């Protein structure tokens, strides 16, 4: 848990969002994250992210599935319990292709989805701070992490200058925690009281 202070700006047009994100990165402020209601192509590059290696993980899981199937079936039919099925050889590789293929796909898909959840830190019961109630609807949200020493006004003025709609300061948990979305968190109550 790490409660931090953020300067938050909203945008409604992708064409304004892209230059704004670039300006934030050039400005020296620490870009916490950009939240969008749908995938915006090219924003990952604009926000300074490298391409993901998720597909490489998928390939490795797939290979694991292939070797599990071939290894297991060949062990069963050549070592553990060889059987004569319709005169087929014990090492009947062509007959194992369907199961090998299915296990390759199964391992790759399940492994990738679990990796996806792990990397994104998402799981049933996980809660994260929602900076704007419409960030999943029609609003793009840029959050800048503000150190205690930084001027709130300067940061908000800077965000306004990038064409932001609403701007505000929020004190919030930066990471994820186990929680329910219908519950108000203590730090939210404290911020509201202040």
């Amino acid at each position, binding site marked *: 848990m790490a409660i931090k202070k953020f300067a938050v700006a909203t945008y409604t047009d992708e064409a304004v969002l*892209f230059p704004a994100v670039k300006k934030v990165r050039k400005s020296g402020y620490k870009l916490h994250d950009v939240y969008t209601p749908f995938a915006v192509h090219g924003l990952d590059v604009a926000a300074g992210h490298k391409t993901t290696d998720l597909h490489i993980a998928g390939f490795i899981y797939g290979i694991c599935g292939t070797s599990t199937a071939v290894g297991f079936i060949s062990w069963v039919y050549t070592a553990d319990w060889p059987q004569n099925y319709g005169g087929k050889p014990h090492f009947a590789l062509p007959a194992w292709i369907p199961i090998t293929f299915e296990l390759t796909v199964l391992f790759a898909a399940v492994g*990738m989805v679990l990796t996806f959840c792990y990397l994104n830190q998402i799981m049933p019961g996980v809660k994260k701070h929602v900076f704007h109630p419409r960030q999943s609807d029609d609003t793009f949200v840029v959050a800048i992490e503000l150190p205690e020493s930084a001027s709130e006004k300067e940061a908000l003025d800077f965000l306004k200058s990038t064409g932001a709609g609403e701007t505000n300061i929020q004190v919030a948990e930066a990471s994820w925690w186990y929680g329910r979305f219908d519950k108000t968190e203590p730090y939210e109550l404290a911020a509201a009281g202040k």
Partner: protein
Amino acid sequence: MHIKYESFIREPLVEGKKDYHQVSEDIVRPIEGKPGRMWYVGFFFSLVLLGYGLFSVGWAVYWGLGTWGVNRTVGWGWDITNFVWWIGIGHAGTLISAILLLFRQGWRTGVNRAAEAMTIFAVMCAGQFPIWHMGRVWDGFFVLPYPNTRGPLWPNFDSPLLWDVFAISTYFTVSLLFWYSGLLPDFALIRDRAKTKLRKALYGIASFGWTGTVKNWQRHEALSLVLAGLSTPLVLSVHTIVSFDFATSVIPGWHTTIFPPYFVAGAVFSGFAMVNTLLVLTRRILHLEEYITIGHLEAMNKIIVLTGSIVGVAYLTELFMSWYSQSWGEMAAFQWRIMGPYWWSYWAMMTCNVVSPQLFWIKKLRRNVIFTFVMSIVVNIGMWFERFVIIVTSTYRDWVPGSWAYYSPTWTEVGFYLGTFGLFFTCYFLFAKYFPVIAIAEIKFVLKGSGRNFKEKMIGYQDMSDEQFYHAVEASHDDHDDHGHSEEKVAAGAAHH
């Protein structure tokens, strides 16, 4: 303003005046409101069917499979017919979400969510048949390769029936993962909009805490693309393996190499018909005509006429091959199919699958909602008869004339089939009430390129000369540089570079 130009030859994928917020409102409305009376009636009726199915299956398990009409030669009756029928229907969803994604078909965004849901429910229904067909269903886990005290004795990995176990369970799992990963952002939207505590809590859990950061979206895109790449051969493999159940045997009528492509085409054919059945109703009842447009229905009807024709060619090829083989058994099997005591099933199949879909060559009929609905039912009836014809008319007369018999189902078999309709529609009604039936985030993604009001803004550009267009594009890019929307603004990009 940013130029996203798409030719007017392409119909808008989203009709009406929409912005991002309106899309959310339109699609989430049924979830936040109370369902209509039709929903309650339909849901109740589905539960009654499901209950009757449970009773029929319970009866068959208690008294044994002797309560079914299957006999010495027709060992696979209605149950395997229904299994193949449902699993075929379950092919459209993944075809739409995976293959059409790889082919960059924008229209899939309007229908993929409901089609994938249909796939998952259809596969659930299909799975019931081989499971309860085992008879001693409590020993069903014997199909799994686990270390056991019988040797260990392993299942037969060389058998298509075991391949089926792996194919269908993999297909179900991967379809479910693909579908659910797409649902996460939409659940997050419902959660963030929720006015009641319960809805916020439940959709909060269902959304896995998704917030839509840039990196999360980047991984989401990568995941969708790879899952689509994996599902494409998967969806083709599943019905191929189902067809191996027949094709690897030496029964006349089953023992043919044409089965895998013929089954896959038939699966797509019946799957799209079922998608049309559901979507014609869904778009009307939930008022989603602006998202599931006539253009969407037409696109699916085009696939129906294509796959229906492929199936037709396959039927004729089978007939040719049985004559060309000059094998007595093969020729007799097909002669009895056409003119034997089951002639009515063969001709029902031919009429529904081959003849009537040809009407979809007429554009007016392709775009007619009522005709589409009627045809979707006709095709599904035809495809049921296809599986009945393959299974029953190949086995009711075997090599020993003394064991020839006429097979008819008993009430337990019919009840079992009706029960799977109950299961299917119970799931679909719950889905239509509690899940966004259209992929909201994906619609928003294509909205600015393919929404009607956004396309109309581009009308002025249609008539410009190259030079005028170039200057217009330059002007629109004055305040910021190129940032990666390139694939959506092909024309603009071409002028830019």
